[in-house]
C-alpha cells in the first residue's frame, strides 16, 4: 500500500486548460492517475486529454465523486482555488504553485484545519505512490519503483537524485512526497511520518530536509516521543552553509536557535535517527536499517 493517494483516488485538475496543466495531465494519465475531471471557468464542456472540463469545482463535484485536486493556478488565484476545492468537500489538495502570498497560505491552512483536508505544498513537484500507480504532480516517473521506502522531501531535485539511487540499489518506494519549499506548507514531515508509520507496506522512511524552518526538529521530536518505530534516515542539505546567509528556498534564513543545522542534527541525535552527511550514505543507512 501507499499513503495519501491510491489506485482509486479520483483526481480533479484545477486550471486544466493551461499549457503546463495539459502537459502534466497527459503525463499523470499515462502513469495511471485516475483524473476524472478538470475545471476552468468558461471552458465547461471542453475536453483536455479526454478529461471533461467543468466551469466550477461545484459543477465537477456534482457530476461525479472526486477525492483529490491538483491546482495549476497562478499564485494570485491559489487561495480562492484551494478554498473552493476544500469547501466542495475535496480532502486532498496539491498546490504546485510558487510565490503564494503568505497571508493566502495562512488562510488555506486555516481552512484545511477547519475542513479536515490535507494540503500538499505550495511550491512542490507533488507526490507519487508507485505501488498504486498514482502521481499527483510532475516528478520524473521513470525513476520510481514500488517498494518499502517512504520518502518525504523539501527539495524536488534532491528527491529525484535520491530516488534514482534507491531504485538503482533495488530499493523501491511506497510513496514519495515533495512537501513543498515554502515557509508555510500543509503536510509537514511529522504528518508524513505518522502516515508512513501506519502504512503496512512502508518499512523505512527517508526525510530529505534543508537548513531553515523547524520541520526536521518536529519530526525528530515525534520519533523521540515514540510515536514512530520504523527506521528513519535523514539527509539535510545545506549543512556547510555559513550562518546568517539566506540560501535555498524562501524560508531558509538561518538565525536564532531553531532552524540551524546544529539544532536539526542535535534533534536527530536525541531521537536516534540516522543522519547521512553525504548523499551516498542514504542508501547505505537504509540498507542497514532494512537488513
Amino acid at each position, binding site marked *: 500500500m501507499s499513503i495519501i493517494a491510491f489506485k482509486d483516488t479520483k483526481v480533479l485538475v484545477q486550471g486544466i486548460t493551461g499549457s503546463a496543466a495539459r502537459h502534466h495531465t497527459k503525463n499523470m494519465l499515462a502513469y495511471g492517475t485516475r483524473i476524472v475531471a478538470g475545471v476552468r471557468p468558461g471552458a465547461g464542456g471542453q475536453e483536455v486529454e479526454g478529461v471533461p472540463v467543468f466551469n466550477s469545482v461545484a459543477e465537477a463535484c456534482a457530476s461525479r465523486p472526486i477525492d483529490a485536486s491538483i491546482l495549476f493556478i497562478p*499564485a*494570485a488565484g491559489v487561495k480562492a482555488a484551494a478554498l473552493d476545492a476544500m469547501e466542495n468537500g475535496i480532502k486532498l489538495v496539491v498546490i504546485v504553485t510558487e*510565490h*503564494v*502570498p*503568505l*497571508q*493566502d*497560505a*495562512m*488562510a*488555506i*491552512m*486555516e*481552512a484545511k484545519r*477547519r475542513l479536515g483536508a490535507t494540503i500538499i505544498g505550495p511550491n512542490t513537484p507533488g507526490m507519487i505512490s508507485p505501488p498504486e500507480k498514482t502521481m499527483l504532480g510532475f516528478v520524473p516517473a521513470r525513476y520510481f519503483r514500488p517498494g518499502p521506502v517512504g520518502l518525504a522531501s523539501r527539495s524536488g531535485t534532491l528527491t529525484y537524485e535520491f530516488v534514482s539511487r534507491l531504485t538503482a540499489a533495488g530499493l523501491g518506494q511506497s510513496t514519495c512526497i515533495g512537501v513543498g519549499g515554502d*515557509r*508555510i506548507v*500543509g503536510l*509537514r514531515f511529522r504528518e508524513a511520518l505518522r502516515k508512513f508509520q501506519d502504512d503496512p507496506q512502508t518499512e523505512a522512511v527517508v526525510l530529505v530536509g534543508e537548513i531553515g*524552518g*523547524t*520541520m526536521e526538529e*518536529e519530526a525528530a521530536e515525534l520519533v523521540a516521543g515514540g510515536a514512530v518505530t520504523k527506521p528513519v534516515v535523514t539527509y539535510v542539505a545545506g549543512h556547510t552553509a555559513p550562518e546568517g546567509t539566506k540560501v535555498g528556498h524562501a*524560508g531558509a534564513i538561518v538565525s*536564532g536557535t531553531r532552524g540551524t543545522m546544529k539544532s536539526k542534527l542535535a534533534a536527530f541525535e536525541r531521537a536516534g535517527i540516522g543522519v547521512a552527511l553525504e548523499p551516498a550514505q542514504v542508501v547505505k543507512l537504509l540498507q542497514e536499517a532494512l537488513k
Partner: protein
Amino acid sequence: MRIYEHEAKQLLRQAGVSVPGSELASTAAQAQEAAQRLGGPVVLKPQTMIKARGKAGLIAFADTPQEAGQAAGELLGREHAGEKIDTLLVEAKVGFDQELYLGITVDYTEGCPVFIASSEGGVEIESVAQEHPERVIKRSISPGQGLTKEQAGEIADFLCPPKDGAVDRSDELRRIIAALYGVYTKFDCEMLEVNPLVLAGGSFLALDATAAIDEDALFRQAEMVRPRGQSEAEFELEKDHRKRGWTFLRMEGDIGILSSGAGITMAILDLMRAGGGRPANFLDTAQMNRQGIYDAFHLFLDDPAIKTVLVNIFAGLNRCDDLALGIQDFMTEYRPSFPVVVRMVGNREDEGREILRQVGIEAIAGLEDSVTQVIKITESLS
C-alpha cells in the same frame, strides 16, 4: 521586503496609532529646518535597513536646530554595513514612563499569525522571551476570524494590569493592538513590530517601528514600491497623496489653495496670478468630504511660507455643511496662524455658512471675490 521606519510609522499613523512628530531630511539644512519646526530636542535616525542602529552609534540626539544640522551633517553620507545613509528621520524627542513591546509575526509551523507582546519594551524580544518568559504573552490568531476582542483584551490587560487607583489605559491599548493587526493584514506584512510603544504624557506612542512586506504579495501592494528616480522623501509624500487621491504640487508662493478638481484649481491659480497673488500650490483632490478637507489642511500646517489659505467649495455632489464641519474641526483643533478665506456655494449652503461663522469665517459666494479677498489679506500681512 523590509520597509523603512518612517514608512512603517506612516502605516501605523494612518491606522490611528500615534507616533512622534517627524520629518524626513536628506541634507543638514533640511534637518536643521525640520528641528526648528518640530521645536524642542530631536532624535535623528538614519532611514536604512541597518538593524540595531543605536548600538552602531547611528542615532543622534540634538537639543537645538543648530545641533540637529550638525549631527545630520555627520550622519549623512556615512556608510555602514554596505548601506549609505542618505535620509534621516528627524523626530521630536519624547520622554516616557514605560516601554512596551508589540509585534506580529508568523507561526510557520501552524501557518497562522501570532501576536507577541511584552511589558519589557526597547530590548530584543528574543532575549526577554528566554530570560523572563513570564513577561511575554503570545496569542495565535485565526486568519479568518482575525484578532478577537477577547484576545486584544487579554493582551492589553497583561501589559497594563488593571490596578486600583491607577488610570485604566486598557481601552487605548486594545485599540492600538487591533490597529496593529489591521495594518499587518491590510499590507500583507510578514512581520510588524512596535518596539518600544511608550507611555508618554498619559498616552501611547510608537517610538520605533519595523515592518516587512511579503514579496510574494507585492502584486497587490503596488503602492509600497518606489518608482525609480524618486528620492525616498518624494516617494513618501507622493504615496500619501496618491492614497488619498490627491495631486499636490508645492510652488513658490504664499497662498495655500484647497480645492477639488484640476480644472477649477488651475482657473483659481490663473485668477490669483492675474490679480497679483502668489499661489503656494496646485492641489487636485478627489471628491471632498469632512475628513478629506480636514486632512488636506495639514498640507499647510507645517509650511512656514504659507501666509493665508483659500478654500474653494462648489458642493455639487457633496454638501456645504459637511465640508464646513471639516474646516471647523481643523480650526478648532489647530488654531492655525494663517487666516482662511472660504468660497462656498452649493448644496446646504446656508447651513454650511452658519457652521463656519462659529469659527469666525464668513464664507464668500463669488469665486473671483474670494480670490480678491485672499490676495488683499495676504498683502496686509506682508
